[in-house]
C-alpha cells in the first residue's frame, strides 16, 4: 500500500492507467509459499533417504565388519543387525506400552476432571498446570527420575516383588537401585500424560451439550452421563491421543538413558535391572564411542525407530481424521 501511494505524488494519471506492479510480488510470494509447503514433503523424504544412505553399509557393505561391530556393541551376544535391533525394539515397545498403560487411565481421569467436574475457573488453572507438565524438558525428568525417584521408589517395587512376585511380570528380587523398566515406564508415563490429557480434554469439551443434557434429563447420574454421552463421543479422539502418547514414549531418549540400566534380553522382568534397552537410548549411549560402521549400525536402528513412530503417528492421525468427518 505504501508503494501504491507513492505515484500519487507524481502526476495522477500514471497511477491510474498503470497498474500497481504487485503482480510480480504476488507470483514470487505464491511461489515461496508453495516451496515451503513442498519443503515439508522433501524434508520427510530427506530424513528417510539420508538415514538410509548412511545406514547403507549395513546392507551393501562388508558383512563381516558389520557383525564384528555388532558383536563389539553387544559383548558377543548378537551377530546380525536384526539380532541386534530385535531386543532393542522389544525393549522400546515394552517400555512405551507400559508407560501408555500407566498414563492412560490417569490422563482420562484428569481430562474428565478438567472438562466436567472442576469449576470453570479451577479448570483453567488445571489446564495450565498440565501444560507446565508438558513443558518441562525431558532431561530434567531424567535427572529427577535418576536422583529422586529411583531411591524413593525402591520400597514400593520391593513390596510389589514380595507380594505380587508370583506374577511373572513382577518376578523378584526387585533391583536396588531400581534402574529398571518399571521405573522408566513410570517416568515416561508422567511425560506422556499431558499429551494424552490435553487432546482428550479438548475432545471431551466438544461433546454436544444436548447429548449431555438428554442423559441428565433421563435421570442419569453424572458418571452415567459421562459413560453414555461423553466417552462414546470422545472414543476416537482418545484412541488417537493415546497413539500420539505412544509415539512420544517410543522416541523418548533422555529419561531412559539417564535411568535405565541397559540389557539386551527378551525379558518381561520389569523389576530387575539390565533386562532391556530402547532404541533411542541405545543410540545416545553408544554414539560417542562408535566408529564409522558403528554409526551406520546405530543409524540403521534409528531408521527402524523412525519407521515405527511414523506408522504409529500416521495411524493416530488417520483415526482423528476419520472421526473429524
Amino acid at each position, binding site marked *: 500500500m505504501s508503494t501504491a501511494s507513492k505515484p500519487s505524488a507524481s502526476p495522477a494519471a500514471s497511477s491510474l492507467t498503470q497498474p500497481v506492479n*504487485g*503482480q510480480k*510480488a*504476488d507470483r514470487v*510470494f*505464491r511461489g*515461496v*509459499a508453495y516451496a*515451503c*509447503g513442498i*519443503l*515439508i514433503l522433501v*524434508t*520427510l523424504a530427506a*530424513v528417510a533417504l*539420508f*538415514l538410509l*544412505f*548412511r545406514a547403507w553399509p549395513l546392507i551393501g557393505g562388508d558383512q563381516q565388519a558389520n557383525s564384528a561391530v555388532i558383536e563389539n556393541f553387544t559383548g558377543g551376544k548378537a551377530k546380525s543387525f536384526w539380532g541386534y535391533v530385535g531386543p532393542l525394539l522389544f525393549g522400546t515397545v515394552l517400555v512405551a506400552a507400559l508407560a501408555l498403560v500407566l498414563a492412560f487411565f*490417569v*490422563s482420562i*481421569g*484428569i481430562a474428565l*476432571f478438567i472438562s466436567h467436574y472442576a469449576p470453570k475457573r479451577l479448570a483453567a488453572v*488445571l489446564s495450565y498446570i498440565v501444560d507446565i507438565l508438558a*513443558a*518441562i*524438558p*525431558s*532431561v*530434567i*525428568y*531424567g*535427572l*529427577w527420575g535418576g*536422583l529422586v*525417584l529411583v531411591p524413593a521408589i525402591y520400597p514400593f517395587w520391593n513390596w510389589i516383588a514380595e507380594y505380587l512376585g508370583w506374577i511373572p511380570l513382577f518376578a523378584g528380587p526387585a533391583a536396588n537401585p531400581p534402574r529398571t523398566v518399571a521405573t522408566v515406564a513410570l517416568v515416561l508415563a*508422567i511425560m506422556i500424560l499431558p499429551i494424552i490429557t490435553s487432546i482428550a480434554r479438548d475432545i471431551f469439551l466438544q461433546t454436544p451439550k444436548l447429548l449431555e443434557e438428554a442423559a441428565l434429563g433421563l435421570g442419569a*447420574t453424572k*458418571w*452415567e452421563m459421562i459413560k453414555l454421552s461423553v466417552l462414546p463421543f470422545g472414543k476416537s479422539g482418545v484412541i488417537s491421543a493415546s497413539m500420539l502418547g505412544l509415539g*512420544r514414549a517410543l*522416541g*523418548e*531418549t*533422555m529419561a531412559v*538413558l*539417564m535411568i535405565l540400566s541397559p540389557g539386551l534380553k527378551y525379558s518381561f522382568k520389569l523389576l530387575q535391572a539390565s533386562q532391556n534397552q530402547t532404541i*533411542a537410548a541405545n*543410540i*545416545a549411549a553408544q*554414539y560417542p564411542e562408535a566408529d564409522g560402521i558403528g554409526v551406520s549400525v546405530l*543409524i540403521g536402528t*534409528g531408521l527402524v*525407530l*523412525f519407521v515405527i513412530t*511414523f506408522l*504409529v*503417528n500416521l495411524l493416530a492421525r488417520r483415526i482423528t*481424521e476419520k472421526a473429524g468427518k
Partner: protein
Amino acid sequence: MTQTNPTGTAHTPTADAAPVIDFDKFKPTRSYTAARKRKDIAMRALIILAFIVALIPLISVLWTTLVRGFRRLNWDFLGHNMTNVIGGNPTPSGGYGGILHAIIGTLEITLGAMLISIPIGVMCAVYLIEYAGGSKLARTIHLLVDVMSGIPSIVAGLFAYSMFAILVGPGTLNGFEGSVALSLLMIPTVVKTTEEMLKIVPNDLREASLALGVTKQRTITKVVLRTALSGIVSGSILAIARVIGETAPLLITAGYIVSTNANLFGGEMTTLPVYVYQEYSKYRANCPADAASGCVTTIPMERAWSAALVLIVIVLVLNLIGRIVAKVFAPKKK
C-alpha cells in the same frame, strides 16, 4: 417401555378412560438407586484421585529442582564456563565452574532453529490455508506435518548428522547442525499454530482487501498475517520453549565442550540440557586426599541441578510470555 401397552389396554373398558399404568413396577429399588449413587461417587473420587496423582510428580520435580538448584546458583555459576575446573576443586574465581558457555550455546542454537523454522513454518501454513485450500496436496502436507510432529527427537539429530556428514564432511559437529535438527522438531509446531490462527481470521477482511484491488500477496502480508500476528508469535514462543529443552539431538549434532564457543558455524557447542546430562553422567568429582578444604565431590550433581533450574526457569518464562502474548493481543471477539 413396551411393557406398558398390555397393562394399559387390559385396564381400559371404554376408550375415554385413561389407561392405568402400574408405575410402581418401574420404580427402581432402593438398593439399585443407592448402587448408582455409590458408583457415581466412587467414579468422582477416582477422577479427583487421578488428578492428585498427577500433581505429585509435578510438584516433586519443580520442588527438588528449586531446592537443589539454588545451592550452587550464583553469579559466578552464571558467568563462567567449565575451563580450569579440575575435579571437585574450586576455580581461581572461587566458584566451581559454570554454565556461561551453555547459555550462549543454547541461545545461539535456538536462535538458529528459530530463523530456519519460523519463516518456513509460517509460509507453509500460508500455502495450506490461503493458496491450496483443501486440495489433495494440501491435505497430504497437512497430514505429514502432523506425522512430522511425532518424529523422535533423536531421529531428527541423526538426520542432521547424516545430512552434514554427506554435504560438509564426515564427523562434522557444530552448532548450526543442532539448529537444523531442532528446526525439524519446531517446524510442525509453527505450521500447526499458524494454521489455526489463519483459520480464525475472518474472511470478510480478506474479501474487503481483495475488493479494494489489493493483490493477494499484500492482502496476506498486510491484512491476514497482521491480524493473526499475536497467535503466530505466541505459537512460535511455545515452539521455542519446546525445543530449547531438547537434549538428544544436540548430543549427536552439537557435541560438548567446556569452553565458550560463540561461533555457530564452527566447532562444538554446549547447550544447557546437554550440560545437565554431561554433569549427571560424571556422577562424582575427584578429590585427592591432599585436596584443599573447598573440594566438593558431589559438585557435578549440584551443577546439574543448578543448570536444570536455569533451564526450567527459561522454559517456564517463555511459556508465560507466549501465553500472555496470546491473551493480550488476541483478536477481540465481537
